[in-house]
């Protein structure tokens, strides 16, 4: 009996979560005229198109002025590069905070953590001026390099690394291994789920990035997906059907990534939550 209730509750939650996505996909296959025609009353056509069309996809993909697939490629490149660098740099930092004892380690860690309370909006202008002075405006460098530090990531990985018994690392030290060797041979293999979780979070964050690419990139051809989608809104209104089609295209890579790595993702979240 309890199982049935569980099952029912899960189904309802799943349907609620999926409904907007289903509406997005089906809505992207209707003409603008009928998209909101049935939106205020409950009926079949609230979801199911009256006349199916792929025109929105054609309009979005084959637009000479705003080549959407190019934006997908740009974003894929930036998000993958950032994810790779973030995993490398921040896990090394987390490893140092978790397992190496050096002077002032806890003070430095607290300083790092305090950066978490500063909202991104406050840092927008200083970061912008820094990137400008470095000459990185309007380049992928300006998007990638400032994103390679993740304080949240260091915190999360540190929590995870602390679970690894120090005795193992000490015996490796006695056998003559360097800290980097220990990191590669012992720590890294043990932390695959956490790394994948962290990697997905980072990738998603960069895939959805809007404000920073908006201010840093000026060349239309180097634009990121979210900024390109926002471009479908003008003073004269929003081209909702194009937005839905573009969003559907933009969701596919994320969905594929998540389906492949899903198992590790959930594992990673549960493990990093367990203490002791």
């Amino acid at each position, binding site marked *: 009996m309890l199982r049935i209730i569980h099952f029912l509750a899960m189904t309802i939650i799943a349907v609620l979560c999926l409904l907007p996505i289903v509406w997005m996909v089906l809505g992207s296959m209707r003409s*603008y*005229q009928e*998209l*909101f*025609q049935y*939106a*205020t*009353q409950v009926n079949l056509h609230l979801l199911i198109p009256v006349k199916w069309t792929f025109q929105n996809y054609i309009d979005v993909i084959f637009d000479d*002025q705003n080549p959407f697939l190019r934006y997908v490629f740009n974003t894929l490149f930036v998000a993958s590069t950032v994810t790779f660098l973030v995993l490398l740099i921040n896990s090394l930092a987390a490893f140092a905070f978790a397992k190496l004892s050096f002077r002032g380690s806890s003070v430095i860690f607290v300083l790092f953590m305090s950066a978490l309370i500063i*909202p991104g*909006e*406050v840092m*927008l*202008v200083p970061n*912008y*001026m820094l990137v*400008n002075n470095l000459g990185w*405006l309007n380049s992928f460098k300006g998007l990638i390099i400032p994103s390679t530090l993740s304080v949240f990531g260091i915190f999360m990985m540190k929590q995870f690394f602390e679970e690894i018994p120090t005795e193992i690392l000490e015996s490796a030290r006695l056998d003559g291994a360097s800290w980097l060797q220990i990191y590669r041979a012992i720590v890294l293999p043990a932390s695959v789920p956490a790394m994948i979780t962290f990697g997905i979070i980072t990738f998603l964050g960069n895939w959805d990035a*809007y*404000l920073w690419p*908006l*201010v840093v990139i*000026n*060349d*239309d051809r180097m634009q990121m997906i979210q*900024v390109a989608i*926002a*471009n479908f*809104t*003008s*003073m*004269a*209104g*929003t*081209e*909702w059907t194009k937005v839905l089609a573009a969003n559907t295209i933009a969701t596919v890579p994320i969905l594929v990534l998540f389906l492949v790595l899903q198992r590790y993702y959930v594992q990673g979240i549960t493990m990093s939550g367990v203490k002791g």
Partner: protein
Amino acid sequence: MKKLFSSMLTVTMLSIVLAACSNPGGDQSKNATNEPQNGGSSPKTETVTLKFWRPSGNDAENGAISKLIENFEAKNPGIKVDLENVPFDNYETKVRTALAGKTAGDIIAIDAPTMSSYANAGALYDLTSFMEADADLKDIPEGILQSMKYDGKYYIAPISEANIALFYNKKMFEAKGIPLPSKNVDEAWTWDQVLDAAKKLNDPAKGVYGIDPAQGFGGGEGPAYFKTPILWQFGAEVLSPDGSTAKGYLDSKEAKEALTFYQSLYQTYKVSPLELPPDPFPTGKVAMFVDGIWDLANFTTNFPNFKLGEDWDIAPLPKAKRQAMANGSWTFGVTADSKYPKEAWQLINYMTGTEGAKIYADMTGALPVRYSVVDQTPKMKEYPYSVFVGQLQKYSMPRPVTPAYPAVSAAIRELFEDVGQGNRDVNAAAADAVKKIDDAIEALKR
């Protein structure tokens, strides 16, 4: 809601940074002395690249701007224009950030009422001498000239104007046997007539509302553009004539009358929708809809089965004691840090001059600013354009000209949300709005 808050926070923060970065007068004078040197030292053969930033419009608008740039480049071989279309919603975020870093475009598009805030911060190049020399200012209606000036100096040039009117669903009117409003600009319906019709047209069972008086409750500059005219129509003003206070104006008897009427549409008679679905008018969810000229083209392309003259028509904007609506649309200005103010002005002068503005008006269907362009465009004298052009030339007025305008705009948006959506006491809400505006004016003086 969180997103809205964070973007509001961003804009507020940036306004502060922009204000802090400015050194009044310094930027301007530096540019003025640098300019002749630049002109003298750089040989004519060198190519100048102008960065031109504007918020992305619809396909017709973007196409028209590209066409104007193409023409300009053909006529001026030494100048290349690098256009960037920025997402509309966050255009100001980007511009203000870039201004703080002194890397904004040479030419930026500016929504007319926000100009004073930019000019006051020293972010704009004074165009007065250029304009008086070659912009033919007599060709521009006086009310619009006022919106181009701050502190007696010209900073921006408008390419087009906009205007709003009462769109009504003709079939619904006929079904209920309600006489149709006049198309004559001088015979606007009163708000009482509108309310009468709205009560008859209202049909909650079918999900049809009588009237949407001012585009629901949105964000950005839209609320101030659509809702300030309601105050004007009832005889109120937002600020004192010298722009020093809102006290005694935004909380006057007339303003409260306007707010009480607006509130009654939502709360007493329930003829207006608290939540506005997208495109409510062409999908038949509201019978009367206050909307802008830009939606003429939108409805034609996106709703081919919803025909002007058969399904719907346009009447002048309703009045109470007087007819009024806001002018001031998108304009172009030159940034104070631009290295090429002269070339930037050449481009602006081409785009906003008779030839450029005519091309823009023809391609987009927007209202021309210049008398000469209106004269050369026969369709502007015909219905439905005649309604908008007539109102623009006779009854339109600029929104309050003050460097505190961003605060004024936000206060008006919140005021109408409070009384319409929140059913808040009109006296308390108006007192709050006055305080917000006066605090902002006070803060700028310091």
